[in-house]
């Protein structure tokens, strides 16, 4: 090892930590644990699971994400996840490197481009207002259950051309994968299998006859002279649903908690909802729902004073990088006028989140419609329930609010 200068004598083992990203303790306040690691040791090794590295500084995360030949997105031979999760093989495109990565992404980029998402805005707005209509006369609501979870779920099903009224089933399957894997692995695997079964059925029917929506388009689309196989298509649809649902729900809930806790934010948004144009980037930076994603080391590598071994898992912590004081002045303050667009909430490099444009649009519409229609909403703080495992998505299971009842927009 060459550059141990940053880690003076008292800290021969200072890069060892017992951080367990699946633990309840971590889920309660992940940013505190990550910030502590960032200031002490931006390349740390956890002894938990089979052992894995954590990158928590902006510059090191940037470097890893832009060196995919060393930091591969391919899971190692034990499977995807830290520790490996049962029930799912490699998902496309997220678990691939070039050239497959580029091929898979080429099937999806246009459907989720800024232009395509702009055309979806009226639908997102209608769906949002329909959901708000369901509870606005009541004076109470659980925003996670009644808006932040169903809106993105309905929207991704709508985009795919699937029956969006069945969103509760899809959400239950996705939650099995995202939130319950550590809590009840058997049930989680069963839910994932059910979900894949459903997807294969839809793939089959889309192959049999033309079907409106993205799934139907993907069933017949060709790139480089070939169509997607059933397995590739099913994997892709699984990932679209997974990525489309809980991440945006997490971002929006995390942000609403901030808006509730800091009245100045609510005042700014109500005075001029267009502050959410740039302000959305600040919420993404500060309230990052996907705390980080893993990479696999492809060959023995010296990396900033640490010796990484082929096959090692490296957790690139986006949420920590987004609070790095060397990149963002006063990083623990939410400032909607901050030019915070260089955050890595959507990852950086060749794996930039394909749904980023859609996520931004859904977030802006949900927050602005909600605050405009229910300006006095108050979070019932003691009843807020976070998920017990923040390793995949840092999100809120229950977000109860009270408010002065209002009027429905449509007769329903």
């Amino acid at each position: 090892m060459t550059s141990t200068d940053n880690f003076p004598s008292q800290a021969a083992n200072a890069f060892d930590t017992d951080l367990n990203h699946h633990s309840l303790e971590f889920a309660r306040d992940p940013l505190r644990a990550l910030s502590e690691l960032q200031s002490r040791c931006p390349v740390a090794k956890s002894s938990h699971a089979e052992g894995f590295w954590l990158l928590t500084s902006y510059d090191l995360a940037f470097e890893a994400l832009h060196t995919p030949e060393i930091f591969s997105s391919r899971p190692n031979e034990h499977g995807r996840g830290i520790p490996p999760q049962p029930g799912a093989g490699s998902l496309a495109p997220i678990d691939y490197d070039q050239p497959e990565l580029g091929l898979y992404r080429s099937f999806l980029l246009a459907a989720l481009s800024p232009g395509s998402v702009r055309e979806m805005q009226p639908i997102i707005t209608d769906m949002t207002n329909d959901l708000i209509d369901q509870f606005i006369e009541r004076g109470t609501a659980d925003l996670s259950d009644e808006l932040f979870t169903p809106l993105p779920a309905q929207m991704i099903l709508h985009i795919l051309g699937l029956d969006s009224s069945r969103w509760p089933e899809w959400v239950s399957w996705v939650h099995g994968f995202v939130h319950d894997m550590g809590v009840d692995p058997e049930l989680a695997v069963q839910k994932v299998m059910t979900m894949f079964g459903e997807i294969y059925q839809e793939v089959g029917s889309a192959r049999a006859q033309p079907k409106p929506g993205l799934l139907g388009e993907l069933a017949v689309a060709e790139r480089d002279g070939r169509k997607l196989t059933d397995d590739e298509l099913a994997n892709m649809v699984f990932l679209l649903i997974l990525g489309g649902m809980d991440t945006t729900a997490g971002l929006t809930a995390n942000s609403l908690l901030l808006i509730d806790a800091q009245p100045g934010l609510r005042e700014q948004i109500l005075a001029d909802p267009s502050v959410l144009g740039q302000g959305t980037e600040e919420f993404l930076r500060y309230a990052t729902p996907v705390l980080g994603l893993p990479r696999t080391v492809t060959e023995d590598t010296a990396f900033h004073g640490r010796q990484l071994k082929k096959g090692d898992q490296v957790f690139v912590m986006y949420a920590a990088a987004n609070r790095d004081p060397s990149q963002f002045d006063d990083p623990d303050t939410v400032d909607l006028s901050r030019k915070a667009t260089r955050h890595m909430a959507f990852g950086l490099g060749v794996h930039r989140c394909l749904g980023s444009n859609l996520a931004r649009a859904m977030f802006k519409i949900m927050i602005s419609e909600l605050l405009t229609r229910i300006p006095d909403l108050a979070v019932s703080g003691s009843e807020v329930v976070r998920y017990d495992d923040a390793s995949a998505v840092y999100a809120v299971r229950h977000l109860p609010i009270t408010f002065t009842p209002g009027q429905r927009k449509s007769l329903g």
Partner: protein
Amino acid sequence: MKVAQYITAPAGETPDAGALMTDNRSFAEGVVMNIEIDSSKCQGHALCALMSDDYFTLDDIGHIASTSGEVPPDDQNRARRGVEACPERVFTIS
């Protein structure tokens, strides 16, 4: 000189930490602003278009469509906002 009125940053606007990997020297001296675009680095974050009020344009998959070149004086402020918005470091100002 005519360009000078466009080169002053709006009052109260201070660059973010880490935002200035571009060389603003010539900009500050009122010389012509030239932007190099390395589109091979673009990953489609679409933030240059958002932050520059669409001075930078995107293609149909959301990647940069604009090409390198000189920026008209009227557009320099919004172009600079777009440049500074890019998390992939696609742009260089010279």
